[in-house]
Structure formats: structure tokens, C-alpha cells
């Protein structure tokens, strides 16, 4: 049955043919096409006009919004790590020592499988200034409720909090998997020696979990730098939140392309952002290797 149809020599190429075709049409061609377009002015209706490096020059030297979005994107990516990673670590540690981990896991991973539109709409109600659940709760405590989504100084922080809420389950699962690999005899030995739970966490868990922590930080940073669907849906009808305070570079590119039809400049933004992410990733990969992490 089926024998003789395919020689052993030809087989790998038959298996790889779909991938090679896909790579040409949906990877190589787009990467080159975007690079070419970034050197032109193109409104997608009339033919592109060659402008050399002028789009890049405009972004680096003239455009005040571009650099602002870069800083705001860095703020978003770093902020969600600074808040999210320690939180996930502590929750995973508590979770791994609890009696019913299954129940907790279900509750903590629910946001992971909820689509981003639902998440954003849920929080657009929770964050409402006058009658949102969060400000009602703060009111019960006698605290003033700020305009989470309308105050420019809070808008990006609100997006960070939602992102942390979404990602907590994933990070917690990764940490829990790392925790399982720690030999329990370390804990037993340290406990016999009179170490408190805090000492176990601080002196055994954290050092031995370093590879997982670095993995979570690096992948989290890349996704944070590239992410903007949340802000797109959380601040609808605005140019990236109140006074553009939640405008990230990705969303800036998206609006430039699909609303202003400036395909050339938008492609240049995409490539500059890509370069930034790449440099940051390479730096972090070096750190990971030094931290003894096996990277695929």
C-alpha cells in the first residue's frame, strides 16, 4: 500500500514543498516588499514613488510623535514585566504549595482563553469613572476613583494592568512548570535547617528558577513591544487613548497604513520597530545564555 509512489530521496522535498511555497509567498516576498515600500511614498491607489531614505529620515529627525510612541511602547513593555513577573512568581509559588492547585489554575488561566475584544470591553466597563466596578470598590474604601481610561497620565497604566491580568495565567503556568523541576529535597533540607517559607522562596526558588524567569522576561518583552490590539480596542475612536497617551509604535504604524494610507512611512515604522525589538532581544538572549538557559 502506498509503496513505490515516492522514493526516499524525493520524500523530504515533497513534505517540504508546501512550506517552501508558503515561505516564498508569505515570508520572503512580504519582507522584501515591505522593505521596498518603506523607500517610497505610496497611498496604495496610485503607483509608489521612490523617495530613498526620506521616510526613515522623517521618523528619526522630524516626527515628534514617533519617538513619543517608542517611549510609550517601552513603558508598556517594561511596566507589564515589572508588575507582572513578580506577581506571577509569587502566585506560582503559593499555587505549587496549595492543596487544590487544579481549582486555582482554572481560575487564574480563564483570562488566557478570553478573546481580546471581550477583555477590552470587560475592562472598559470595570474602569468607568463614575459607575465602574473598580471605582465603586475604591469608593467603599473611601478612596477617590480616577478616570482610568480618560486621564492621560493613567491611560497607559490601565492598559498595563489589563495586560498583566491577561498574561498572569500564562506566566504562572510557566513558573509552575519550572517549580516542578526543583528537587524537593532542597526544600526539605532547608526546612530541617529551620529556614522559613520566605527564606525557601528567596534562597532556593528564585535562584533555581532563573532560567524560567529569563524566558518569561524575554518572551514577555518581545510580545509587549509588538502588542497593540489591546489599546486599539480599549480606546476606540481615539488616536491611541486620551491625548495619544496610550499610543504605541505598533498602533501608530497601523493607523498610518490603514487609516491615513501612508504605506511607505508605515512600512518604515515597522522596520524601525523591528530593529529595536531585535536589538533588545539579542541583548536578552546573551543574558539568557549567560544564565544557563537552553534556547532553541
Amino acid at each position, binding site marked *: *500500500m*502506498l509503496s513505490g*509512489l*515516492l522514493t*526516499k530521496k524525493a520524500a*523530504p522535498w515533497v*513534505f*517540504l514543498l*508546501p*512550506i517552501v511555497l*508558503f*515561505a516564498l*509567498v*508569505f515570508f520572503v*516576498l512580504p*519582507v522584501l*516588499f*515591505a522593505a521596498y515600500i518603506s523607500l517610497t511614498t505610496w497611498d496604495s491607489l496610485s503607483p509608489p514613488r521612490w523617495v530613498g531614505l526620506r521616510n526613515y529620515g522623517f521618523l528619526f529627525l522630524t516626527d515628534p510623535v514617533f519617538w513619543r510612541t517608542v517611549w510609550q511602547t517601552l513603558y508598556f513593555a517594561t511596566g507589564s514585566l515589572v508588575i507582572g513577573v513578580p506577581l506571577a512568581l509569587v*502566585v506560582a509559588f503559593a499555587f505549587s504549595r*496549595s492543596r487544590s492547585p487544579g481549582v*486555582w*489554575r*482554572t*481560575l487564574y*488561566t*480563564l483570562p*488566557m*482563553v*478570553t*478573546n*481580546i*475584544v471581550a477583555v477590552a*470591553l*470587560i475592562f472598559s466597563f470595570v474602569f468607568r469613572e*463614575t*459607575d465602574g466596578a473598580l471605582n465603586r470598590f475604591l469608593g467603599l474604601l473611601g478612596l477617590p476613583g480616577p478616570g482610568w481610561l480618560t486621564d492621560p497620565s493613567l491611560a497607559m497604566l490601565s492598559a498595563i494592568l489589563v495586560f498583566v*491580568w491577561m498574561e*498572569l495565567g500564562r506566566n504562572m503556568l*510557566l513558573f509552575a512548570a519550572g517549580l516542578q523541576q526543583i528537587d524537593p529535597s532542597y526544600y*526539605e533540607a*532547608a526546612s*530541617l535547617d529551620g*529556614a*522559613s*517559607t520566605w527564606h525557601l522562596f528567596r*534562597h532556593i526558588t528564585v*535562584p*533555581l528558577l532563573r532560567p*524560567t524567569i529569563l524566558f518569561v522576561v524575554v518572551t514577555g518583552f518581545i510580545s509587549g513591544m*509588538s502588542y497593540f490590539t489591546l489599546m486599539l*480596542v480599549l480606546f476606540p475612536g481615539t488616536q491611541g487613548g486620551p491625548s495619544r497617551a496610550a499610543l504605541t509604535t*505598533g498602533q501608530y*504604524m497601523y493607523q498610518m*497604513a490603514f487609516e491615513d494610507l501612508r*504605506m511607505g512611512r508605515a*512600512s518604515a515604522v*515597522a522596520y524601525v*520597530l523591528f530593529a529595536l525589538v531585535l536589538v533588545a532581544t539579542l541583548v536578552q538572549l546573551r543574558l539568557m545564555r549567560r544564565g544557563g*538557559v*537552553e534556547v532553541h
Partner: protein
Amino acid sequence: MPDSAIPATAPAFAAAAEAAIPPRRRPRWDRLGWSALTFALLALGAAVMVVPFLDMVLGALRTPAERLARPPVYWPRDPQWGNFVKVFSDMPLARWFANSAGVTLAITALQVLTSAMAGFALAKYRFPGRDGLFRFTLGAQMFPFFIFLIPWFFILRYFPLMGGNDWAGQGGSGFLGTYAALILPFAVTWYGIFLMRQFFMAIPDELLDAARMDGAGELYVFFRIALPLVGGGLATLALFVFFYHWNEVLWTMTVTRTAPDLQTLPVGIYLMRGTYENEATKSLQQAAVVVSTLPVVIVFLALQRYYVASVTSGSVKG
């Protein structure tokens, strides 16, 4: 004990601890206190995870009058359970649901198949260019999605001989306005190829060669011998891809803004937000979100164990 010394000297450390006389027990208050603290912490966190969902359900149950009252009513006194039915006639939820299911299943099937084929070829054959191709699939993973948004849109738009286009890609609309625009760009996952290669590497070559000696062809070896052995890997990848693409919004929104018939659940609900600007109608919008979230939550609860494996499979090994 300096923390840097622990990983390297842990066995010696353990031996030293056992030899220590007399062994000091942790005080009882510490153990009790910490388990209470652990529980409180987990419960508090769980509340933060779940309350936003409940807030949405409460919102969906409010009457227009309760929403417009000053101050607005939080706990609905006359819960509008009918809202969950009304949304199906108010917006094309069933259509969106069918689109989501069809597109997501098609993408999942394609990605699993292409990943298995490529992973098998890269793991179990020797041929010139193999290492180069493998390195390409690794390098391709570094390219973020936003690089492809603009070029994909126009490649699909000007795809030759499709959707009324001539050989030069002019005259029609290409793949835009068809399901292919939602599926084709996601037919292959570089990460999935890497993952499946890992699974196929674990199969001994002798097993496949034995089948070949018995006269089995290469297709037989792949489909009937190798694939069944990596069933767990296929399921892991399938679940991960399914949940990821069920929730995909950005690309689908970009290509279906002007094609309402192709919109998926999240995209449809998002793009219809203008209809629910009026405060009185917001309960229906919230009901739609609840209805759109529920099916995937139920699937998740059923398959949770396997999904967890799929999330952690790509992380740190060893």
C-alpha cells in the same frame, strides 16, 4: 547561607543539614501562618481574575432604566435573562460563530499538517540544504507579526488569477473578501515546525527503516507509522493553535472591515460597537460578550489539562 552557593553545593548542603544536630524544626506558627497567607493570597488573586467576568454578566442583566438611573443601579433588580437570547436576533452572532469555528478549524488543520510534514522531513531525512532550511525556520520566528500586516494585505489583493485578477494581479480584488484571506497567511507556523521536529526526533530511525524493509513507501511510513507515534505532540500543537486563532483579532479585522459576511465573533462584536453607543443599549453589548466568551471557556474547562501542557511545552527544558 549565600544564595549563589545553593545550586552548586546543594547535595553537600543537604548532607550537612541531615548531619546537623539537633535538627531545628520550623516553628509551628510559621507553617500555619504561611499556609493561611498562601490561601489568602491565592483567593485574593482569584477574585481579581473572576470579578471582571461577573461584572460583565451583571451588566448584561441590567434594564435600560437601571442603566439610565442617577446614580446607576449596580445590582440588577429585574435580571434581563432574555438579553442572552435577544442578542442572537439583534446581531448576526450565529454567523460570526460559524465563521470563527470554520476559520479556526481550517487554520488548525493546516498548521498541524504542514508542521508535521516539515518537522518529519527535517528530523528524519538527510538531504542537501536541510540544516539551512531548519535555520531558516528558526530565524523566521524572530520576525514579528506587524512586519507582515501591510505586505500581506496587498499580496492577497493583487494575487494573480484570483478573485477576478488577471495574470498581473489587476482588475479584481484577489483573495480579499474570501475566507482564503483569513486562512492562507496562517497556513504555516514556524514554531510548530520546530515543535514537531522535536517530537519526530525522538522516534528511532530503526523503526522507520524496518517498515521500509517490509516494503512500506515513504508516505506510508509518515502517515501510518510516524504520525501515530507523535499523537500527543499533534494534540498539543492543535490546542495551542486553536485557542490562539479563535481569539485572533487584528488581521481578521483588517481584511473584513468591508466584508461583514466574513467577520468572526470578536471582530464582529468590536466593529458593531457604534450601534451600542447609547447607554440604554449597552446591556445587549455586554450580553454579546458573555455569549461570545462562554463556548471557548467551556471547551477550555474540558481540555484544560492538555492546554496547560501546550503552553509550557515551548518553554525551558531541563
